[in-house]
């Protein structure tokens, strides 16, 4: 009986390990290809070299694309954070007719196929004569990440204890002062969380950017996408490795900030408690 139990666990663990390998395999393959000396992607590689990394400096278009990506993602995230937080304040703190409908409308970009939004943006921005540039992309991406901000910041707002705000009001603080000195500091963590999720999401966005942008304002995924359709040399692998490293660094930075900042447990716990009675 005991032995059977152990065997069964062993099988499960092996299976989980294999799935982990499956998840990691493409990333490992990219790393290997970025180091291979042959120009064609062939397994096993003929030899190992750092040649492609040293050639990366010559590929100005990827550097420029990285800069474009940073600008577009930061812009879109900031826009979504500001508009989304303001809207969440209104939706959570006031009850007005059509509140649920408005919230559903703001959340609906989540279920809209991205390719559909991409074509809609292309047509709209062409009519507005701003298609092709990063400003159009920022507007379009802000719409796509607004639901993240609204749901994360909104649920944090709903869980805030109104006592602090009332105390500030009793001490004579106006609504603006209350927001900046009481509510905003309490929301810091959820804003960071919403912002980082939104940033990763916009940074990797393909469908909308591919249709809106023109040569010169391509973001990194688009530049890679178009390069891949034409060439198959390890440059793509090198850029991909850099991207993976960037994603990892971002992930650990966020994790560090969240771990050092107190209060996430209460945030998560509060949400669970709220969901509890419903089920």
């Amino acid at each position, binding site marked *: 009986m005991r032995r059977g139990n152990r065997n069964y666990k062993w099988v499960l663990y092996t299976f*989980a390990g294999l799935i982990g390998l499956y998840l990691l395999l493409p990333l490992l393959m990219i790393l290997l290809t970025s180091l291979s000396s042959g120009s064609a992607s062939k397994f096993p590689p003929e030899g190992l070299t750092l040649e492609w990394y040293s050639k990366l400096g010559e590929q100005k278009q990827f550097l420029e694309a990285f800069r474009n990506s940073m600008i577009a993602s930061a812009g879109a995230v900031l826009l979504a954070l500001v508009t989304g937080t303001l809207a969440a304040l209104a939706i959570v703190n006031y009850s007005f007719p059509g509140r649920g409908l408005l919230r559903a409308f703001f959340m609906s970009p989540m279920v809209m196929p991205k*390719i559909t939004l991409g074509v809609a943006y292309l047509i709209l921005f062409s009519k507005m004569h701003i298609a092709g540039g990063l400003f159009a992309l920022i507007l379009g991406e802000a719409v796509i990440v607004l639901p993240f901000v609204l749901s994360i910041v909104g649920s944090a707002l709903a869980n805030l204890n109104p006592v602090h705000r009332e105390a500030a009001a009793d001490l004579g603080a106006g609504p603006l002062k209350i927001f900046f000195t009481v509510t905003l500091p309490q929301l810091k963590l959820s804003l960071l969380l919403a912002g980082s999720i939104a940033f990763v999401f916009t*940074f990797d966005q393909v469908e909308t950017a591919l249709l809106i942008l023109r040569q010169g304002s391509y973001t990194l*995924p688009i530049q890679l996408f178009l390069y891949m359709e034409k060439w198959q040399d390890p440059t793509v692998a090198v850029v991909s490795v850099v991207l993976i490293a960037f994603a990892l660094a971002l992930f650990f930075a966020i994790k560090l900030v969240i771990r050092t900042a107190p209060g996430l447990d209460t945030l998560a716990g509060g949400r669970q408690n709220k969901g509890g009675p419903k089920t």
Partner: protein
Amino acid sequence: MMRAAGRLTGLFTSGNRSWAAQLLLLLPALALMGVVYLGGLLIFGRYSFDLYENGRMVRDWNLDTYRAFLGDPYYWKLIGTTFRVAALVTFWSLLLAYPLAYVIAGLKSPGIKQTLLLLTFLPLLVSAVVRSYGWQLLLSRQGFINWLFIRLGLTDSGFEMMYNETGVVVALVHIFLPFMVFPLLNVLTQTDGTLKAAAHDLGAGKWRTFFTITLPLSARGIASGVQIVFTLCLTAFTTPQLIGGGRVMTLPVLIYQRTLDTNWPMAAVASLFLFASSILVSLFVNKGADWLMFRRTRTGGQKHA
């Protein structure tokens, strides 16, 4: 007393002010969503009533493009491919995600748990373009998988796995697996261990405990995982385009190609169809799960009575 009086006047004036404040707070989001999102979609939707003749668009108000889309067997074949790929990916990701989530939920050592969690969610941080590129390398004729197959003696010249449905499904399962693991993990960690222990004490074997306790209790997680992965798959573009190389036509790839051909009416109709079908699938899966759970609890109750 003074303060109470102040509050009282505040109550009277705040009615007006709160209205203004609400509007002011909502205005930026309303402007953004109204112009960019709703405006864009409405203009795009309007194009679905236009015509596309001899390579140019004709402004009109009729349903010819809808008829052309719904009446053409080519498009139905393409819709079939889209749904078949989505169903296959959902099936395989459920099959792989369930044991993984089960193992993660049952792990006691926090170190291994963290590592497995990181391994599961790391791919999410990496762009779909990069992951598709990784699968291109793995699946190509001279790639790692074929090298492995030849080594194992399964084939002499290697299988063709790029530019067909197999490759697209394998890569999409990789891309959407985390979305299946997350809801499963959510329900599996909440599942009460005492129920399993009770079943075991009553003499139920491992498998019986699993099928009568664990699996039914995780039905909610399965339903939301299936819903998320299926709809994401229906609307996936990057991977089918890069791995399929234009030879695996799904609805999003069709929309992209029609847009490049400036056939906006057809792109609009196909988009509308895609949106409607993803909403319908979500509703269907949700209702289906509700119905199953309701039936279970009801029959259970009758047995007790």
